[in-house]
């Protein structure tokens, strides 16, 4: 397993995956063997990540690699380590649509899966929410990295598809002393609302500057801004019109149960990003491993993934009991329908999942959910855009 364990938001993601391994072991282990998870840190750096993955594949002889978070690290691992070596790779959190393209042209050899919906869902939902709010002209602030460029491009397409004018796209490179020039530039486009595809670090500067210069308080932001830091630094009085987007878990029992079981195990609610996704990635991967048998190769494990996520199969819960039942089913060659922290996971042929969405806003007590947008509505909207 490769995750950025040295980074504060990366550690809980790794711990969640390890927790799954504990439960699988409690349920009897993969094909009767105790799962031994080797964790390596990628520091969110591509060179470190590739080195870590290479060591896992060569030295530890893994056939299954779980990881990692940043698409920029996941992609080189996929193209230079796991796919050439025939190792299956599953990630909780990489959202880049570039991986979809890699899967489409066969580079990933069907060895790749992820439990995190691509940026397309969020970008499209932003347009849906803007349309519903009657906004006709937006300007986009985008973090100038792969994620920001990706989601801003997808959002811009969605805005245009929904008949909303994109008046400007302003790139925000992190680590600059001042974003005043960028904000001035955006101000000149006189938008009715701004779309913020930013992280809190530069988001605070940009939003405060934007408001101080008299910019509109109508703002639509990505899930990356879901933090108290923004609320405290900008002030609730200026965030009344803010709408956030996020992908969501379906409103199923299994998804609803996840926070409770997580809190029982760790003594705190699952507040960081990607935790249910990490849970599901690990669970699906290990169940598929079980189905393939202890000596299986990466390709053999990958081939068993559809058995674990068969919508027609028996429902499998994400706990020790559920895993025990699932492994019994799989040993008999039957399929199951895994119901995890992100609901019933189904991969498309490129290893991608789709997801329902929510809109949220800042409230006195923290982030408050506004509206749940079911999978069907998201799907219909995206289809209508094209």
């Amino acid at each position, binding site marked *: 397993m490769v995750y950025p364990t040295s980074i504060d938001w990366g550690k809980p993601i790794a711990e969640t995956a390890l927790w799954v391994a504990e439960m699988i072991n409690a349920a009897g282990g993969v094909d009767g063997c105790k799962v031994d998870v080797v964790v390596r840190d990628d520091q969110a750096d*591509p*060179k470190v990540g590739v080195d870590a993955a290479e060591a896992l594949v060569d030295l530890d002889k893994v056939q299954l690699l779980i990881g990692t978070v940043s698409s920029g690290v996941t992609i080189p691992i996929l193209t230079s380590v796991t796919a*050439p070596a025939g190792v299956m790779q599953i990630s909780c959190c990489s959202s880049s649509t570039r991986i979809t393209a*890699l899967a489409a042209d066969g580079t990933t050899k069907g060895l790749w899966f992820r439990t995190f919906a691509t940026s397309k869902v969020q970008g499209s939902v932003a347009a849906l929410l803007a349309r519903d709010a009657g906004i006709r002209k937006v300007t986009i602030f985008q973090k100038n990295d792969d994620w920001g460029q990706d989601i801003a491009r997808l959002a811009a397409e969605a805005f245009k598809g929904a008949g909303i004018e994109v008046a400007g796209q302003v790139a925000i490179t992190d680590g600059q002393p001042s974003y005043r020039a960028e904000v001035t530039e955006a101000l000149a486009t006189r938008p009715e609302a701004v779309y913020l595809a930013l992280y809190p670090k530069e988001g605070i500067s940009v939003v405060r500057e934007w408001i101080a210069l008299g910019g509109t308080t109508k703002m639509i932001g990505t899930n990356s801004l879901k933090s108290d830091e923004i609320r405290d630094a900008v002030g609730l009085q200026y965030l009344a019109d803010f709408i956030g987007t996020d992908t969501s878990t379906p409103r199923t029992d299994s998804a609803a149960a996840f926070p409770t079981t997580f809190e029982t195990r760790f003594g705190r609610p699952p507040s960081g990003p990607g935790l249910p996704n990490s849970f599901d990635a690990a669970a699906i991967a290990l169940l598929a491993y079980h189905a393939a048998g202890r000596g299986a190769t990466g390709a053999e494990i990958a081939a068993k993934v559809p058995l674990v996520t068969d919508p027609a199969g028996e429902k499998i819960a994400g706990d020790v009991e559920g895993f025990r039942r699932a492994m019994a089913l799989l040993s008999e060659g039957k399929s199951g329908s895994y119901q995890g922290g992100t609901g019933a996971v189904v991969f498309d042929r490129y290893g991608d999942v789709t997801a329902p969405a929510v809109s949220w806003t800042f409230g006195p007590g923290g982030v408050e959910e506004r509206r749940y947008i079911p999978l069907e509505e998201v799907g219909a909207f995206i289809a209508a855009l094209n």
Partner: protein
Amino acid sequence: MIGVISYLAFFATMAGILAIAVLGLNLQWGTTGLFNGGVVAFFGAGAYGTMILGGRPEPGQFGGFEAPFLLAVAGGVGLAGLVAWAVGLLTLRLRHDYLAIATFGVAVAFESVTRNAEWLTGGAKGLRGFPRPFEAAVGDPFLYGLLFLGAVLEALGLAWWGLERLTASPYGRALRAIREDEEAARAIGKNPARLRLQAFVVGAMLMGVSGALYATFYAFIRPQDLAPILTFQLWAMQLYTGSIQYILIGLVIVLMLLWRPEGLLPERIGRRTPNRTAGTAAATASKEATTP
């Protein structure tokens, strides 16, 4: 056992690839005394040039000419040389810290272009490469890893041999003369400006080779790979090895940097001059102290 060898081969491949860039740095700084603070720009030019020429076509993306591997690498290296030539014309008359920061700026500007010129470089998400040459034909990843390492070491050996020949030749002596005393070199009829530019371009082309192999190895290149820290890592390798024989060992020595600022072999390094630009003197001293 095969796993250990395979991992070591992977590690040695990376080391070998970076060592080629260090050879380039050694020619620029060690031999000619040019303080290049923007190694990643030339490394990046090699990598991006190779990827654009050799990559597969993608919608909305310039490049993807699927050129044969060696042609793509030659193009990348040529691009690195071209960038170096233009940069050199502009900046080589500057000295020391000015040159360092000006070239550092070139690297930042280069990174900026790769991050933003999406049509050309794929933007921040990077540029996807081509399947590694002969990988499909070889089939076995372990064997292929060894073969790739062999090719890298061959390139490294070739570059090394070439540079050894070069530095031992009268031409190399002229370069060293410029580093030591430009006025004297001019007096004996050398054209320092032209020699410096040539050394700068040749060094940058070696960095381009390194970048080309790096991008080939990862089959992927993106702006984050061109972070300034890479320049400093290569500098550390160059500084704390001094002589090109020790460049591979340098990888390990980098780690000692923080708690051994005086270098690995302090007792063998000559006394330093406070009056002169002591960097040159120290580098000279350490280079000669470690050359057998």
